[in-house]
């Protein structure tokens, strides 16, 4: 690759101008997906726009009740800085690849690839995050669930870059878990995020790697919200009834539309989601009961 085709903007504005001027160029952050795609010949290296020198993208800041995570924030820096505000996202970051990958890989790259197996996506959905997209002429925010439109496809326009993810700070316990057939460095067979939102009296979910796009289990969320209202559990912090948890787990499993592939069978994915949903709702609820700082 010649230096002329390796573009190194030093500000976000410059990056956006390059993006507008060169529709064929590839945005490159940590390159942990880009290099793999280049090696496999699925991407062709015409021009690369290197985003690693754009300071704005690397910033992580709290603005009121929301954390703005710049697209260039790496997993490693998320883990080091955001554990308290964004527990599910940080739990997901911990499961990504290896230390090397976590050093290089970014949340913007995960969104840019829009893989159904991307580990950031379920927590972002369970937290109700929004994605900030920018072009040289405009910017917009998209609710995370509207961002994905198919396996490895998103609404990101050809002249746009991901600027940041806006993630509400945790107002209750959260969890993320990922099933893989080895104990580290594995792409999700399926994954799940669960977040309790006592302030809005909601339980939210995000399912990964079990449908063409990451998604929320809306029926499961509605069911458990109804149950918690009925039993006044948000106020009393009473234990959850096993039948309600079981039904929640059923509905999470039913929300998925998995396929059979080399990583796992659809039937197993549904099964595993059911087990994870049961366990994770219980973990979160027990934490809610235990921790005085969480209250409706």
């Amino acid at each position, binding site marked *: 690759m010649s230096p002329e085709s390796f573009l190194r903007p030093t500000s976000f504005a410059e990056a956006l101008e390059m993006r507008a001027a060169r529709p064929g160029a590839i945005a490159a952050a940590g390159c942990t997906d880009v290099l*793999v795609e280049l*090696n*496999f*010949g699925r991407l062709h290296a015409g021009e690369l726009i290197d985003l690693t020198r754009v300071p704005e993208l690397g910033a992580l800041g709290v603005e009121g009740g929301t954390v703005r995570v710049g697209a260039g924030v790496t997993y490693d820096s998320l883990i080091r800085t955001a554990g308290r505000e964004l527990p599910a996202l940080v*739990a997901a970051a*911990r*499961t990504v690849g290896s230390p090397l990958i976590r050093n290089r890989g970014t949340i913007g790259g995960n969104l840019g690839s829009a893989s159904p197996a991307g580990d950031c996506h379920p927590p972002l959905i369970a937290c109700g995050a929004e994605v900030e997209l920018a072009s040289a002429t405009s910017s917009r925010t998209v609710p995370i669930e509207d961002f994905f439109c198919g396996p490895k496809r998103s609404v990101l326009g050809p002249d746009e870059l991901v600027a940041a993810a806006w993630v509400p700070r945790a107002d209750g316990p959260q*969890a*993320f*878990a*990922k*099933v*893989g*057939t*080895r*104990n*580290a*460095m*594995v*792409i*999700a*067979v399926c*994954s799940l995020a669960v977040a309790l939102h006592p302030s809005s009296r909601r339980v939210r979910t995000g399912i990964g790697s079990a449908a063409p796009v990451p998604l929320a289990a809306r029926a499961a969320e509605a069911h458990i919200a109804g149950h918690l209202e009925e039993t006044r559990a948000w106020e009393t912090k009473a234990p959850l009834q096993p039948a309600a948890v079981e039904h929640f787990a059923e509905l999470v499993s039913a929300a998925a539309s998995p396929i059979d592939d*080399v*990583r*796992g*069978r659809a*039937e*197993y994915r549904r*099964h*595993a989601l059911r*087990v*994870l949903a049961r*366990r994770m709702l219980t*973990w979160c609820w027990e934490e809610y009961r235990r921790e005085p700082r969480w209250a409706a």
Partner: protein
Amino acid sequence: MSAITLERRVGGIGDPAERLDGVEKVTGAFEYASDLCRDGMLFGATLRSPIASARIRRVDIADALASPGVEAVLLAADVPGKNRFGLNFDDQPVLAEGLVRYAGEPVAVVAATSLADARAAVGRIVLDLEELPGVYDMEQALEENAPKVHELGNVLRHVHIDHGDAGAAGAEVWVEGYYETAMQDQAPLGPEAGLAVPGGDGGVDLYVTTQWLHVDREQIAPCLGLPEDKVRLHLAGVGGAFGAREDIHSQIHACLLALRTSKPVKFSYGREESFSGHVHRHPSRIWMRHGARRDGKLVAVSARLLFDGGAYASSSPAVVANAATFAAGPYEVPNVQVEATVVFTNNPPCGAMRGFGAPQVCFAHEAQMDKLARSLDIDPVELRLRNALATGSVLPTGRPLAGSAPVREVIERCAAIPLPEPEPAAGRSLLHYPGGAGGTTRGEGLRRGVGFAVGYKNVAFSEGFDDSSTARVTLRLVRGEVEAEVYTAAVEMGQGLYTLLAQIVRSELGVERVVLRRADTMIASAGSSSASRQSTMAGGAVRLACCRVREELSRRASALAADKSRPGGPAELEDLLYEPVEAEAVHRHRRTERFDEHGQGDVHAYFCFAAERAVVEVDEELGLVRVLQVAAAVDAGRVMNPLGFAGQVEGGTAQGLGLALMEEVRLARGVISNPSFTDYLIPTILDMPPVALQAVEEPEPEGPYGLKGIAESPTVVATAAVVAALRDATGRELNRAPVSPDELVGLLGPARSAGVPAVPEVPGQEAVPSYHTTGSGQQHLM
């Protein structure tokens, strides 16, 4: 003996000597074959068939030839010599001719000024294929109306062992079982690579990753139409092998292109191509029946083995013979009937991988022993002890076991290793649960299980092969310092052989500084770095060469002593090295025999035994696994280097654990669907438990210093031990390796067989092609 005494040096045999190549490798300075580089070199790329069974209608290379940077595009017709090679038979085309028999078979090769240009040109070759019916299942291969992968039919070899009485009177309890193992990849980190440099003499120099330089040359030269002395092989840095570097990969392609273009040509496969560039471990289906007396004594074992050899012979004939001889396990069994078949299919070729046929049968016979223990209500370890082979025991091949066989000791020593402490289910680091970094449990669903396995593997080549290894040792003064140089064609591929050879020299000659000359074919063959053989074979040759060096030193010392004109005092080693001392020697092991018509004969030279006990924790709801500990006792004869010993046992165990839990090359109509390390999973450090290790040192009469090759036996037993532990944890049958999470949670039942396949009709015990072809190939390699 003369006046000269040679001291024992640090770093001699038995010491934890550091690896000669260790620092270079960890600092990145080591030159692997993929780093090879020459001014003006070209890059090679290969067009491989995308489908598994087809007739080649047309190959149009016009566009590729006109493509930028391209200097040559070669097809089968461009092979100047024989368009066939192979380890046991020369049945594999250098470039496909008329037919393709597996997906990934090379059809054309390109040389261009850059790798990108070479790959682009490959993309411009028009390959017009007519798909033919294929054989994708090993049982289908045996059916009468199955398509024939080769004209001679689909049976590559059938080995029949008939020992004792098939009726087997006296058995009071019978157990039966059906078992399957998957295709496994050796997954060496360094993919195939090599550089061919045309010589001024019309010959060629090839720098290459391999396990055996001379057998490569034997296969390469006839294809190039050159005499062997014009084909000079040099060892390049090998990044792991495990059997995957025994067969030819790009050697012939690189030489053909170098000779055609008169320029150096380099091949360096990526990971995906590597999956097509080497053979794999044979998938197997195994039916077994064990009969025993109430007191636990085995009376009879009958086994039907079926191995998928894929499209070409490779070393399959030898693999299936091994599997047949080990099918009854390391036990005394008076009546053994084995029918073992390896078939051709249109799947990728299978051949050598660490264990060489033994892991598959160990998986089956050890599951059978556990079943038997349950039926008899005898402790599984005790049952194994009651039947353990020992020196003098009659093997299923009808001959008494000649070498050392401390089977009881490996079992007892392994069983005596303390079990890991129980860990509370809650409150651990998330990384220490099944599911590891995924954080899928905080103590829910955990079950522990313990499994035990014993197995064995032959050391060195079998079935009458004239197995030898040559080495040369030179002792000289370099700037006043004594230095020994070892020159052998034996391959170091990461196993630590060169360190061990240096240890032998240090001990035998009392020198500190030992250097290894780069291996090449200018010295006689050392045989293969495979079959657990090289420590004993190359080691034996180096030891003999050292003895000869010492003899010469004694002669010189006596001559000096006799020289009256010389001032008094004993001669120093330096005084004797007024000119270098050089000696060459050949090591051979005892001659073995071929099978007779009943599968009887003294077919193996000697054996290495191992026992392992695995402790696992299973998340029974998710089917995820954490192996807590592997306890291993390995029959080493003599531990030459404790670090090397531990490394081999741990690495070998990891490979066996991989087959138990995750490693499987998946095929869809013969096409590999997971040819990457994203989807072909191998264990990470989080999947690998600590290995609690015991060496059993009973000297082997055949091995120099009493040593045995130990690199394979841990792999042989690890798969069986881990799956046994999973059975113990879950109570499920688990008759297929790798075990999937689906099976562990009960979403999938055990693998089922449609019935024991009929025994094919074959002319005899030899591989079938040997009854058809005459005089070609490397048949003596079996």
